[in-house]
């Protein structure tokens, strides 16, 4: 009986389509970004998303959705993040084009727990992607910790994402680094799809760049803006005299 089961499992493995025909890359759907990434986001690697505002969560979720394919994804949120930026909402995920039943949520008490849970989760090949949310710059998240995540991601092919908010950029072993802020809607009355002003500031495999990317919730893919929208002044040229990425200033009230 058990021999039959093994044989069956073997046959199923043969019949199943390869998880990634594209050699471990998943195209994002945005032509220029995919060109810079040599075909798409590398699966089984670590990617960093630095968030200036809530758009970062959406961008990381969208990337994880692309990378996970039909598999489930785990989102590790620290208690502090949930208070500061809100908890990940199931109805929000559904509206964003991500099936909430395919998402596991883990609440971590601190950065140490979050990283440890992330390392644990990367050992589970049934997961498609893991998002580890780390606010600020905790000491525990250093080059060694990020390399550990990279090795974990490579071992089982689970794609790892570090979602950083209120954080300074620091050296890491990540494959790509994205700086993300909300993109303005075009016209006055047009309330469009989620829109990201995304800068690929580090890419181990190719050029960097900065694009306006729109997430199409129905297709679960990114797309560029139409010509007209692109010229509406939504994209600003990167500044050369100051850090390209600074947290929004807070005014004393």
């Amino acid at each position, binding site marked *: 009986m058990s021999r039959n089961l093994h044989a069956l499992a073997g046959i199923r493995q043969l019949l199943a389509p390869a998880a990634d025909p594209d050699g471990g890359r998943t195209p994002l759907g945005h032509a220029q970004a995919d060109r810079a990434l040599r075909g798409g986001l590398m699966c089984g690697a670590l990617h960093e998303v630095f968030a200036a505002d*809530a758009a970062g969560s959406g961008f990381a979720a969208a990337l994880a959705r692309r990378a996970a394919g039909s598999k489930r994804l785990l989102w590790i949120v620290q208690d502090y993040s949930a208070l500061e930026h809100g908890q990940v909402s199931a109805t929000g995920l559904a509206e964003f084009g991500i099936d909430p039943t395919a998402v596991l949520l883990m609440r971590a008490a601190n950065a140490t727990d979050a990283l440890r849970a992330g390392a644990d989760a990367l050992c589970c090949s049934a997961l498609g992607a893991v998002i580890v949310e780390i606010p600020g710059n905790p000491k525990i998240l250093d080059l060694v910790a990020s390399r550990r995540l990279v090795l974990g991601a490579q071992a089982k092919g689970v794609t790892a994402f570090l979602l950083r908010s209120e954080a300074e950029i620091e050296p890491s072993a990540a494959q790509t680094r994205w700086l993300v802020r909300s993109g303005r809607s075009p016209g006055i009355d047009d309330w469009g799809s989620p829109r990201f002003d995304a800068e690929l500031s580090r890419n181990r495999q190719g050029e960097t760049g900065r694009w306006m990317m729109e997430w199409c919730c129905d297709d679960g893919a990114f797309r560029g803006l139409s010509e007209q929208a692109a010229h509406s002044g939504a994209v600003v040229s990167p500044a050369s005299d100051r850090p390209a990425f600074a947290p929004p200033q807070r*005014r004393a009230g």
Partner: protein
Amino acid sequence: MDARAAALKLHPGMALASARAMVRALDVVEADPAADAKLLGQIADWCDRFTPFVAIDRFDGLLLDVTGATHLFGGEEKMLAQIRAKIAAQGFVVRGALAGTAAAARALARYADGTIAASGEEAKATAFLPVAALDLEPRDTHALKRAGLKTIAQVAGRGRGELNARFGKTFVFKLDRALGLGEQPISPRRILPDLLVEHRFADPVVAEDFIAGTLLSLGRSLCGVLEERGQGARFLEASFFRTDGVVRHIAFETARPLREAETIARLFRARLDALADPLDPGFGFDLVRLAALHVERLVPESVGLGARPDEDKEIAFLIDRLAARFGSHRVLSFQAQDTHIPEAAAVAVPAQHAPETKIAFEPRLAGEVPRRPLRMMEKPEPIDVMAQVPDGPPLRFRWRRVLHAVTRAEGPERIAMEWWKNQSPQPTRDYFRVEDEAGRRFWLYRDGLYGREPFSPRWYVHGLFA
């Protein structure tokens, strides 16, 4: 009261002044009931090695249900002697007795130390005990003494109707129990396991590897029994009994019935690694026990071509491992709820205990932009708002001390509260999706309608769109 105090003719309940007068060098320590209770709890934990059924009796006694366990210790006499000797060896003064009912054993232990009453002979054994052994109200004990009834036999000799009329029903029940005529269930301190396996060591063990190996071999024998019964464990507990009497219990739950010894051992390892205060063997453990506190039927899995059973199993194992390490309440999965109230429309429940649900998430409308924010505040945060018209969207708002100028707004989406559920009326909410000058999108609502509901409307941020 130990023998030395008795020799000095001291007794409980005497006035401090008279005790001081009798013994000049008396060392007085204030009573600490909390510490006493804690110590008694530790002794009760230690007694777990004799039977899992241990109950606390008042503030100074323990009841052990040893039904079916005596043969493991060489019979009733040997077991009682062993319990008494081992507790005495730890420096306690101990009295003990064994009888067919809890009340009889209790009375004998307190007033006839060392008695073993054979089943059915409780009445004979307790006959000459003082009435105080009946565990009565002080008032009733006093009344019996005044009536000249000094022993249980004398009380038992009176008519039941007479006693019932004078002292009430409870009294008669207590008497019957002490005579072995009725039984009162005792409630154990800990959950009684469905199954347990244990390993006793002749010499205490300390080595971590050896303990891990023991857990694995215990897991194998437990799984063997589970397999015979067609069951799997959902709630497992390992108990480590130290030679010096300290007992440590380590438990974890699983997402699905479990019957694999290797997985059990691995989950225990994850749990042990994550302990804030690590397992301290001290001078060594002399007993390790593995108990399945809760078991469930485990249906052999059917292998379907389309399904992905391996994937589900791996996910369940991941959930178990994370829960063992960080707590079951931290690993969550989402479930839809049958309500339109935004904050209640979905709940995050512990993934290990997620019940089956028939309610599905509302599918998104094709071509529609997200109507609900990706991140929702756990508690809506109040904001200061400037609106152009009372019923319209805000022009500007201040949230967490930052002023946001609204450039685009969508709404209102009017959501009425569930008036059929709440006693006090709750204000209707008007929700707006707004975008500020930097493109950040917020989900705001106004609590209450202008001029229509008896509240002054307030504004809140409820969520952030991606």
